[in-house]
């Protein structure tokens, strides 16, 4: 009897834990967009003065750090140039590319003051580990913008590895640029151009 009770106890305790882990990719993206919208709506610096700095930092810390796979993003962004980089250079590339992506993604969402996000039908199977979640950002007076999130399942979690705004990937759109940079100044040249860009962006 005791054994049965213990078993029941374990069963009831375990169920909610399992439920938390079973996030669908759609729920994960919804968590991300909800968190970003809350930051955007409540940031007085952004709402009153149009200063995106503090909101960008919050979005980075609370949303992007935990839910974006920046290593995968950097690999995709660099394309075939990635393998030419030494481990140290790869670290530097991830660090700089991450800053650039955080700025671009935040800028794309801080345009809005009071947006709503619609989830469009995303086609995927329950067993898929790499899916695209389609959303549309709406605000009166601004034409609706499609934002699609490519997410992959890593362990129990869904991580974003590409964001596509109105059909343009914030990640792969750099491939041709990086090829040209590497041809001109090697991997070091590409890192330097990223650093220069991030410094000018940081000053704003």
């Amino acid at each position: 009897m005791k054994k049965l009770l213990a078993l029941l106890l374990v069963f009831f305790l375990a169920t909610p834990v399992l439920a938390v882990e079973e996030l669908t990719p759609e729920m994960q993206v919804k968590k991300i967009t909800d968190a970003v919208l809350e930051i955007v709506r409540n940031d007085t610096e952004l709402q009153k003065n149009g200063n995106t700095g503090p909101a960008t930092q919050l979005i980075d810390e609370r949303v992007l750090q935990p839910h974006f796979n920046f290593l995968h993003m950097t690999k995709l962004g660099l394309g075939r140039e990635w393998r030419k980089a030494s481990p140290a250079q790869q670290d530097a590339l991830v660090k700089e590319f991450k800053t650039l992506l955080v700025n671009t993604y935040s800028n794309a969402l801080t345009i809005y003051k009071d947006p709503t996000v619609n989830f469009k039908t995303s086609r995927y199977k329950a067993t898929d580990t790499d899916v695209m979640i389609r959303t549309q950002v709406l605000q009166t007076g601004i034409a609706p913008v499609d934002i699609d999130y490519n997410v992959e399942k890593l362990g129990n979690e869904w991580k974003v590895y590409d964001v596509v705004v109105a059909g343009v990937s914030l990640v792969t759109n750099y491939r041709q640029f990086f090829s040209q940079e590497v041809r001109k100044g090697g991997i070091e040249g590409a890192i330097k151009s990223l650093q220069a860009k991030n410094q000018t962006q940081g000053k704003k």
Partner: protein
Amino acid sequence: MIPVSSRSRLVVVSLLLIALSGCATTNGTYRDRSNDPWEGFNRSMFSFNEGLDRALIKPVAKGYEAVVPTPINTMITNFFNNIGDLMVAVNNLLQGKVKDSASDLGRVALNSTLGIAGLIDVATGMTLEKHNEDFGQTFARWGFGEGPFVVLPFFGPSTVRDTFGLAADLPTDPVSWVSPDVVRFSAAGVRLIDTRADLFSAEKIAEAGAIDRYSYLRGAYLQRRQYLIYDGRPPRDKEEY
């Protein structure tokens, strides 16, 4: 439906199509491999267009945005979208998407009547979604190759295929059929400024993301076109590195 006066335009379009089939050679991915053999020319055209934008179009669009209240701005955008939906319907039909084409015509019918001459987009609320189609996309569906990237003076980024598309879009644009010149030019002018004002948000993203503006906008244009051709579901580039 097509006025007699534009029959000659159809002839021009047919001739363009024949010419186009001759250059349907380039294909494949644009993301890594550069399909921009005219980069030097393109970059100077790009600077020319940006100069023109900075000096003239952008300031007017900024003023327009500041003066025109948001609801009116939306109505103006809706009005031109409604006119545009007519050729969207035609292009969907040419691409064999009969259902979409019928939905586009439904949009025009609803928005022109209930939506008061297109000022209010009532159709979207009734689940008749707005589509984005043009002759460049139709030619792509018909199998014509993209051709090299090209920056056109005044019209901006394009490809060889989209340039032929534009050549078909311009004469079939209902605004170009309006008869007194003054009205036609004013309408085209207002539409240009309204469109430009709607691009401010996209411009902000590009400013944050672009390390080299030309390269960023080239990539964005090509990816965006691919997305539109495949109606939001382009084939995924599965290459991993």
